[in-house]
C-alpha cells in the first residue's frame, strides 16, 4: 500500500476556484447583456452567439490537435472569446465574417502564441479590428434594434450608432446635432444600434458589478479607464459644447462600459500589478478619447485597449512592487 502514496509539493489543499470556473463566472456576468441582445436583435443575436462560439471552440480544438498539444478547450476561455467576439460585432453580420473573426481571434492571436495566457493582445479585439479594417461595410452595417415582441425573426433595418451619427454630423455640419443622437435613456437600456454586447450600458454595468463582487476583477482598470474618458471628454465638452456629446453619453456609448469591465480587464492582456493596472486604465481612456475627439473613427475603445496591451510587459516589469523587507537600491 505504501508504494501507492501520492507525493507532491506542498500545499496539499487548494482553493476551490479554478480557471474554468473563473471563465464561467465571466460568462455568467455577460448573461444579462447576452439576453438583452437576444431581446433586441432576435434571431440575429442567437445566430451570432452560436456561430462564434462554435467556430472559436472548434478552431481551438483543431489547432491543439494539429500541433499535438493537449487540448485547452476545457478551460472555457475559447467559449468566452467566442461570446465576446459576437458582442463586438454588429448583429446580422454574415457567417463567413464570424468564421474569419474566430480564426483571427483564436488561431492567429491566441493559439499561435501558445494558447491561454501567452497572447499579448486581446483576441476578440484583434479580430474586431481586423474585420473592421478588412470589411468596413459589413462591420458597420448596424441594424435597428427591434424587440422580440415583433417575433424572433424580423427584417433588418440599418441605422447609425450614436457616436457614428455624431461623427457624421461633425464632418457634414461642423457641430453636433443632438436631435440625431439617441437619447441617453435608450443607450442605458440598450435600444440603440451598435455592437451586440455593449448596447445596454446598464446591463454591462450589472455584469461588471457581479465581477467585482465575485472578486474576479478589481476596481483599478474599470475605474481608471471610465474615469479618464469621463474627465477628458468632460473638459472638452465644457470648452466646446457643440463639438461633442456630454461626458455621460461618452462613457455609456461606443463600448466604453464593455471595454472597461470585460475587455480591458482580460487577465492575460492586462497588467498583474495594481499600480500598473491604474496606468493601463488611464492609458486606455486617454487613447479612446484622442481617437474619438480627433480621429476619424467614432469609437476607439478597441484600438485603445490593443495599443495599451502592447505596453503590458513593460508595465509589469518596471512597476514590480518592492517585496517585504526589500531594501532600496
Amino acid at each position: 500500500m505504501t508504494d501507492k502514496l501520492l507525493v507532491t509539493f506542498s500545499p496539499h489543499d487548494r482553493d476551490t476556484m479554478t480557471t474554468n470556473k473563473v471563465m464561467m463566472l465571466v460568462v455568467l456576468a455577460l448573461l444579462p447583456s447576452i439576453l438583452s441582445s437576444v431581446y433586441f436583435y432576435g434571431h440575429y443575436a442567437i445566430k451570432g452567439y452560436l456561430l462564434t462560439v462554435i467556430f472559436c471552440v472548434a478552431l481551438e480544438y483543431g489547432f491543439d490537435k494539429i500541433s499535438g498539444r493537449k487540448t485547452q478547450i476545457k478551460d472555457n476561455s475559447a467559449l468566452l472569446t467566442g461570446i465576446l467576439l459576437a458582442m463586438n460585432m454588429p448583429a446580422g453580420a454574415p457567417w463567413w465574417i464570424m468564421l474569419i473573426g474566430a480564426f483571427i481571434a483564436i488561431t492567429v492571436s491566441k493559439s499561435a502564441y501558445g494558447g491561454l495566457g501567452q497572447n499579448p493582445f486581446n483576441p476578440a479585439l484583434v479580430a474586431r479590428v481586423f474585420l473592421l479594417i478588412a470589411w468596413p461595410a459589413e462591420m458597420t452595417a448596424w441594424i435597428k434594434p427591434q424587440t422580440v415582441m415583433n417575433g424572433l425573426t424580423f427584417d433588418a433595418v440599418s441605422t447609425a450608432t450614436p457616436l457614428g451619427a455624431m461623427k457624421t454630423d461633425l464632418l457634414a455640419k461642423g457641430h453636433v446635432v443632438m436631435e440625431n443622437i439617441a437619447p441617453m435613456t435608450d443607450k442605458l437600456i440598450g435600444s440603440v444600434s451598435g455592437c451586440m454586447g455593449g448596447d445596454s450600458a446598464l446591463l454591462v454595468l450589472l455584469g461588471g458589478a457581479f465581477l467585482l463582487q465575485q472578486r474576479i476583477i478589481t476596481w483599478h482598470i474599470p475605474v481608471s479607464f471610465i474615469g479618464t474618458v469621463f474627465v477628458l471628454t468632460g473638459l472638452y465638452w465644457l470648452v466646446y459644447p457643440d463639438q461633442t456629446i456630454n461626458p455621460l453619453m461618452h462613457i455609456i456609448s461606443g463600448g466604453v462600459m464593455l471595454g472597461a469591465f470585460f475587455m480591458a480587464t482580460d487577465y492575460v492582456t492586462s497588467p498583474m500589478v495594481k499600480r500598473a493596472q491604474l496606468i493601463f486604465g488611464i492609458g486606455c481612456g486617454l487613447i479612446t478619447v484622442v481617437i474619438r475627439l480627433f480621429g476619424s473613427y467614432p469609437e476607439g475603445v478597441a484600438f485603445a485597449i490593443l495599443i495599451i496591451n502592447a505596453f503590458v510587459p513593460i508595465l509589469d516589469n518596471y512597476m514590480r512592487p518592492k517585496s517585504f523587507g526589500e531594501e532600496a537600491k
Partner: protein
Amino acid sequence: MPYFGFKGGIHPKYNKSATQSKNTENLPVEVGEVVHIPLAQHIGAPAKILVKKNQQVKTGELIGEAAGFISTTIHSSVTGKVVSVGTVEHPIGGRVPGVSIEVEELTEDYVPIDSGDSFQKTVLAAGLAGMGCATFPSHVKLSPPKDVDALLINGAECEPYLTCDHRMMVERTEDIVKGAVIIKEKLGLKILAIGIEKNKPDAIEAFRKFEKEYGFEVIELEVKYPQGGEKQLIKACLNRVVPEGKLPMEVGAIVHNVGTCACIYDAVELKKPLYERMVTVTGAVKEPKNLMVKIGTPISKLIEYCGGFVGEPKKIVMGGPMMGLAVTSLDTPVMKGTSGILVYSESDLPDLTQYNCMRCGRCIDACPMELIPSAMDRFVVKELYESLADWHVMNCIECGCCSYVCPSRRTLVGGFKTSKRQVARILKEREDNKND
C-alpha cells in the same frame, strides 16, 4: 500593543474541529517496539553519533552531539538496546543516518541533562530546535550577536488541521509562560508578548489569567494564514519589517513557538531533554487525536492508535496541509519538528490538473512577502535563474499561499523551492564579483 497586521495571506478552510477540544493522550510504547531516531532533525549540521550497535541506552540519554554551532544534540526517547546504527526513513531525504533502538523497559524516568554553565548551553544540552516546523536550533536563536528587546511567543498555529499548539496552550499554559519568562530574564528583554489567533478563545482566555502575574501581553491575532510566519508575526505584533535575507534579531526581535517555550521550561526547571513532542493526528483516520509521542516512533503506530485509516489513504502529510511534507513510507519516524500527521483519502485531495497561467494575479494578492509569483513561475519554467534572483525569489518563505489560490493549479511554490539552490549560487557569484 495593537495589532498591526500584514499584507497578503489567505483564509483556507481550517478543519480544526476534529481535535481542538480533545485532551492530549500519551502514545504508549511497548517492549520490543523499535524507534528510529534520525540524526538530522534540525536545520544545520546533522548530530555526531555517540552510541554503538548493541549498546544499552536510557530514556533521555545523549546519543548524538552537536556537530558545529548550527546543530544540536539528540537523545534517546526510550530505554533499551541500539539495534542498528545506519539509516532511517526521512520525509525529504529518502534515508538519512540514524539510530534504531529497541524498547526493553518501560519507564517514565529520564536521564537529566548536564546543564552546563549557561542558559544557552542548557538549551543546547536539551537538544531544542524550533517546535513549529522550521526546527532551527534554539540555542542559536537565543545567542543573538545583536541587541534585542522583544520576545514574541508564537501561538498563532495558522496551519489548518493542526491543533497541537492550541492544546498545549490550554493544557500547559503556565509552563509556556514560565519558559518565556526564563528567556526574557536570561536575555534581559523588555517586551514579552504572545500572539494567538482569535479562533482559539480558550487559549487566549487561559493566558489572560497569567498576564498580570508574569508581566506579558496577549495579542489577539487576525485569523489568516501565514500569521505564524516569523516575519509576518513580527510585522503584525511589533510593526517591524525584517529586511530581506536577515534574521528577526536585525529588528531586535526573537520569536519562539509555544512548544519551544514549554521545552525551555522543561530543560531549565526539570532538566528534561527533548525526546517527546505533541503531534496532531487527523484527516482520514477513525479517531483524530492529539498525542504525546516519543521521537522516533514510526507514523504507522500513531495512525494505528487513532483507530486506523478511514478508507484507503492516498497521501500522508507530515506537518500541516500548507507546508507539510508528503511522506513515501509509513515507517517515517516522528521528529522534533513533526507537528502533525495528516491523512488524505482520494476524495479529500484537490484535482491538480494544470492549466496555463492566465495572469489573474491572485498569487500576487495572496503573497505575504509581496512577491510576483506568476512572473517568477515563468522564469522557473524557462530556468531563468538570473531573472529569479532579480525578482527576489530568495525572499520567498515557501508558505504556499500562491499555489493554494492558483486557479490554474500551477506548482508555484514548488518551483521556487527547487530553484533556490541555483539562485543562491548566482547571488554568491554576484557578491564575489562585486568584491573583486
